[in-house]
């Protein structure tokens, strides 16, 4: 018979010098001798011990020297004794996963600075002490919601403790120290899973050791490998927080000072711009400009005068040339009667009084005799 599986309890275990292992596999009403040859034993991965429940895979043969039927093991697995429970667990996981309880979009991020930290665990457990040690001096209210974390009724107790924190915490740590698969089993319950899922604040699960995974871990917003790690995730590092405050102070001071400096520089610059010297040089410039304008104005004025004067002189000359004065000064006179200029003797009567305009002065004369035109000599 080849490639069959046998389940039972291990007894009479002998690890022989040759490297072969001999034992008896038995259950309530039967037993069979088994051998695990050295070459097959290399892949075993755990220590065989009397009393272990195991599942053996191998071939059945006969040990001829003694005429004994034996099972020649090719592989051995620990039988957790939870075959059925295991199937149930897988079914639950599948159901919850299908409902979306594990899905990433339901995962909430943890608050950076929680004010109220809820802890669901046993008040007597080492896990609580680990968590409190890590939270240390971080200023938060710690609300313990006691739960029974193993044994009969543990799942109900944990679920109730989680629900009791409703509205009372900013973050919840559900934790338990290490234990057997059996001990941790309550964290695989649907009750606990739903309570965690429905919790109104983010939940960190930390059940057992790093290698233990429970349904609670899948539903929780964050899974921590250990209670200590869970506490580290829940609160910020207080030293970092302190240095953050110091940094903020330094940055504020620096930017305030640099702002002041910048303004001082600007003020300094503006002050330079309107300094007395600068103002003086500005007025000096204006004054010079005024002077030059004045000079140019004066020059233009006198030039204009000279031009006018010379024009006047010219006009005078030309006037003199065409006017009567020059003629009169050569001995001519202008004769006027009350009717106007006298150009002909015919214009006047004998005895009439006429006005003579000479080069210098005037005379009133009386006409003694009126002679004909032809008698006058030019």
């Amino acid at each position, binding site marked *: 018979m080849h490639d069959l599986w046998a389940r039972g309890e291990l007894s009479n275990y002998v690890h022989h010098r040759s490297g072969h292992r001999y034992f008896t596999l038995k259950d309530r009403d039967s037993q069979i001798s088994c051998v695990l040859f050295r070459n097959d034993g290399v892949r075993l991965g755990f220590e065989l011990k009397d009393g272990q429940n195991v599942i053996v895979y191998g071939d059945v043969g006969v040990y001829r020297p003694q005429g004994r039927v034996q099972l020649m093991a090719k592989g051995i697995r620990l039988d957790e004794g939870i075959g059925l429970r295991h199937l149930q667990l897988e079914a639950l996981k599948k159901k919850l996963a299908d409902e979306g309880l594990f899905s990433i979009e339901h995962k909430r991020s943890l608050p950076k600075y929680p004010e109220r930290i809820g802890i669901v665990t046993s*008040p007597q457990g080492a896990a609580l002490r680990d968590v*409190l040690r890590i*939270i240390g001096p971080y200023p938060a209210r710690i609300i313990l919601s006691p739960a029974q974390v193993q044994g009969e009724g543990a799942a109900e107790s944990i679920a109730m*403790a989680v629900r009791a924190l409703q509205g009372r915490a900013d973050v919840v740590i559900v934790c338990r120290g290490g234990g057997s698969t059996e001990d941790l089993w309550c964290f695989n319950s649907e009750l606990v899973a739903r309570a965690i899922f429905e919790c109104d604040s983010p939940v960190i699960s930390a059940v057992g050791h790093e290698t233990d995974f429970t349904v609670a871990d899948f539903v929780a917003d964050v899974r921590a490998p250990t209670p200590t790690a869970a506490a580290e995730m829940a609160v910020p590092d207080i030293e970092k*927080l*302190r240095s953050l405050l110091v940094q903020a102070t330094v940055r*504020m001071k620096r*930017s305030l000072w640099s*702002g002041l400096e910048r303004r001082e520089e600007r003020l300094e610059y503006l002050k330079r711009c309107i300094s007395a010297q600068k103002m003086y040089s500005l007025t000096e410039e204006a004054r010079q400009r005024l002077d030059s304008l004045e000079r140019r104005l004066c020059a233009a004025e006198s030039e204009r005068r000279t031009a006018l004067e010379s024009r006047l002189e010219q006009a005078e000359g030309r006037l003199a040339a065409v006017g009567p004065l020059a003629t009169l000064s050569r001995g001519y006179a202008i004769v006027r009667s009350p009717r106007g200029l006298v150009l002909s003797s015919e214009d006047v009567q004998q005895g009439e009084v006429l006005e003579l305009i000479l080069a210098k002065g005037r005379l009133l004369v009386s006409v003694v005799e009126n002679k004909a035109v032809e008698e006058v000599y030019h």
Partner: protein
Amino acid sequence: MSEKDVRLEEALDDLERIVEELENGKKSLEECLDLYEKGMRLVKHCHARLENAKRKIESLTGELPPGLD
């Protein structure tokens, strides 16, 4: 809400915003001084919260086991 009741998270968020506003330097001097004053008050408040913290542990049901602090 009195200053004592301000949550650490809020105070730190406010502080961060104030530091950034001061650093980008677009505010008037008056406003900068106000911000600075406010920021320093927040720093003081946070420090006080950290230094004077007495851890308060309470239990929702039953007595706390002795020696938890």
